[in-house]
């Protein structure tokens, strides 16, 4: 009897506790990027809290969110991964391109899926090479194409002779769209002017003087943190028309536009989800999470761009977990089953309406060949007077004629250097 008790205790201690569905949250609530990390982390955790409080978890199994502070630091992010993976982690949202790159080989070897939503390695879209990495519903190359599509739409489909500048963070992240924009430049005949900004981007006088002197018709921005606020202020200073200034989704939060005040009015940003809190789900969020005193933060971030993104990421993870339960026939799923659920994920408007998020995000489906979704994205515009973002376009389809060969080329290079045989069997 004693031996049996000891054996059970040893098994319990040695193996992960399987009574919960574990979703780690690699957050950054401290450091220079905390202002962006906090709303995302709050949205991510609050959605799971809502499922626990309202539905009793997913498929009857309670959810446990394991939050680990990365400070937006790659080394700390990897430490967080190593320290939480043994807890039965189902999927990681690294929330940093640097951490994602580090986790690609590790998570693949450990059999744990990674969801880098709108960041990370773009060619991870090719699931035949990146078996455990997912980047639906859109990636940076989709974003570059969405911006150009928007400019095309504004100019009657002809932008030959137009000059488009890209103000970008001088890092791997900031350089991501350059190749795509070059290819699109060759296709549509616009002049492309890339302008790099040194990290962290507090001083951008040279770059904006260059823009003033070169007079581009449009400026795109791939920025992060303080670079965004300074760029928007400098654009306002040189009186660059804000409706011709389009940022990637990581340059499109309230944090980015509020410091410039009225000067930011009309600034545009790409997005792959809707904004504000005019959705039925938020009534439940208020009732079961905020009013119940169970919100991850102060409960004052609901509806902000980054809170919505964190909440959307959690919703997609929860739906993938449901799909995994459906496929495997068990409620207490493993990371491998979660991966299968993510690969079979299908987001329809009916499902979104059922969740309480009608017209919140694009419809898309995932497959082994396509871990990146359908590449849909829209454009939002900032109204400084009302203090809110609004979607001003439908969801655009990115130019897959340009992007697909780039994904194939980059993923093939990764497969060759990593000794991976692409497979979807």
């Amino acid at each position: 009897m004693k031996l049996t008790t000891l054996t059970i205790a040893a098994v319990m201690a040695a193996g992960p506790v399987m009574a919960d569905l574990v979703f780690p949250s690699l957050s950054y609530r401290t450091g220079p990027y905390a202002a962006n990390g906090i709303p995302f982390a709050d949205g991510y955790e609050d959605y799971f809290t809502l499922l626990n409080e309202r539905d009793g978890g997913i498929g009857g199994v309670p959810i446990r969110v394991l939050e680990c502070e990365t400070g937006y630091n790659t080394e700390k992010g990897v430490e967080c991964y190593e320290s939480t993976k043994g807890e039965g982690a189902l999927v990681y949202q690294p929330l940093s391109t640097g951490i994602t790159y580090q986790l690609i080989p590790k998570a693949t070897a450990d059999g744990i899926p990674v969801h880098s939503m709108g960041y990370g390695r773009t060619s991870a879209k090719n699931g035949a090479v990146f078996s455990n990495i997912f980047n639906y519903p859109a990636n940076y190359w989709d974003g570059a194409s969405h911006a150009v599509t928007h400019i095309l739409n504004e100019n009657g489909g002809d932008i030959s002779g137009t000059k488009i500048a890209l103000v970008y963070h001088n890092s791997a992240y900031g350089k991501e769209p350059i190749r795509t924009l070059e290819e699109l430049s060759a296709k549509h005949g616009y002049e492309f002017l890339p302008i790099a900004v040194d990290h962290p981007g507090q001083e951008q006088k040279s770059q904006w003087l260059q823009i003033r002197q070169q007079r581009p018709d449009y400026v795109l921005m791939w920025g992060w943190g303080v670079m965004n606020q300074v760029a928007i202020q400098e654009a306002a200073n040189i009186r660059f028309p804000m409706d011709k200034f389009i940022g990637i989704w990581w340059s499109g939060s309230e944090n980015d536009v509020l410091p410039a005040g009225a000067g930011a009015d009309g600034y545009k940003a790409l997005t792959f989800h809707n904004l504000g809190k005019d959705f039925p789900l938020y009534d439940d969020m208020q009732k079961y999470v905020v009013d119940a005193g169970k919100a991850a933060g102060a409960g004052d971030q609901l509806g902000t761009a980054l809170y919505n993104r964190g909440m959307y990421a959690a919703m997609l993870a929860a739906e993938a977990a449901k799909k995994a339960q459906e496929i495997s026939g068990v409620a207490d799923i493993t990371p491998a089953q979660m991966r299968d659920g993510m690969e079979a994920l299908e987001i329809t408007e009916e499902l979104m309406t059922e969740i309480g998020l009608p017209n919140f995000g694009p419809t898309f489906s995932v497959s082994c060949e396509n871990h990146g979704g359908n590449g849909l994205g829209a454009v939002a515009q900032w109204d400084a007077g009302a203090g809110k973002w609004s979607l001003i376009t439908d969801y655009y389809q990115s130019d897959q004629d340009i992007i697909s060969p780039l994904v194939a080329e980059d993923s093939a290079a990764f497969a060759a250097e990593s000794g991976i045989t692409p497979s979807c069997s």
Partner: protein
Amino acid sequence: MPDQVLFAMEVMLNGLMAGVLYALVALGFVLIYKASGIFNYAQGVMALFSALTLVGIMEGQVPFSHLINAIFGTDIHHFGWHVPALVAIILTIAVMILFAWLVQKVIFRHLVNQEPILLFMATIGLAYFLEGFGDLMWGSEIKRLDVGLPQGINEWIDLTTFEAFGYGFFIDNLDISATIVAIFLVAGLIVFSQYTKQGRALRAVADDHQAALSVGISLNFIWVLVWSVAGFVALVAGIMWGAKSGVQFSLSLIALKALPVLMLGGFTSIPGAIVGGLIIGVGEKLFEFLIGPMVGGATENWFAYVLALVFLVFRPQGLFGEKIIERV
């Protein structure tokens, strides 16, 4: 005049203005180093903390509200009033004086006669403490700072240069304000150090601690005074930089912009900080304009540190620093 020459002139003028902003940060380092031999790693965080405090007071924010709400289950964030900028600046200066007193009382009083590297390490600890304390006290969201300084293109310069050259120069009104503030600040510091009793005492301590003590100058008082003045300079830098980007935790990184300025101008010279700032500002902007496009751009930080390195090799004490001669 060819366009490229006009553009270069515009870049040079903007470089001068940027240099003033760098110099504002460097001044705080110089003041403390000159008086106590401490390289204050926390100077950038002091700029952040002072700017956070200023916005918090102006907006009537309840300090430590997140902590209070978490402990007592309350939901308070604001007092419901707004404080005029001038009053808030005076209150912030008072907070920075209190901070200086605490730093002296709690940290540096216990480290008298210790190795400079220990004092430097203490300021690293202070920087991390202050950053976390500021986060806890005022929250980590990005805050808009508006103390009434004009921002945006200066119309008069734009019009005048357009009439003269056919191309209107861009100069930011905020940069002009920063230049005027810097001129008054440096003039004030010079008057203070040359013509006031406390200023002379400060110079005496800077020259020789032991001799200053022997004539009855209180080292404690002088160090509190110099940290207070450095806190005030940090506030000025925080206002200028915070007005550009909003007050946020990246503000502490402006210290990185001051290091090459210090290496160039010398760690002990107020005029050196100004001249160093101007050289770095103009140099990095012109380099980015002329050479940047050939090498992919984003050369400013690289250029500033390489220029500083060159100066270190040929003139280790900087342009205006005191040459240290140690005889065996």
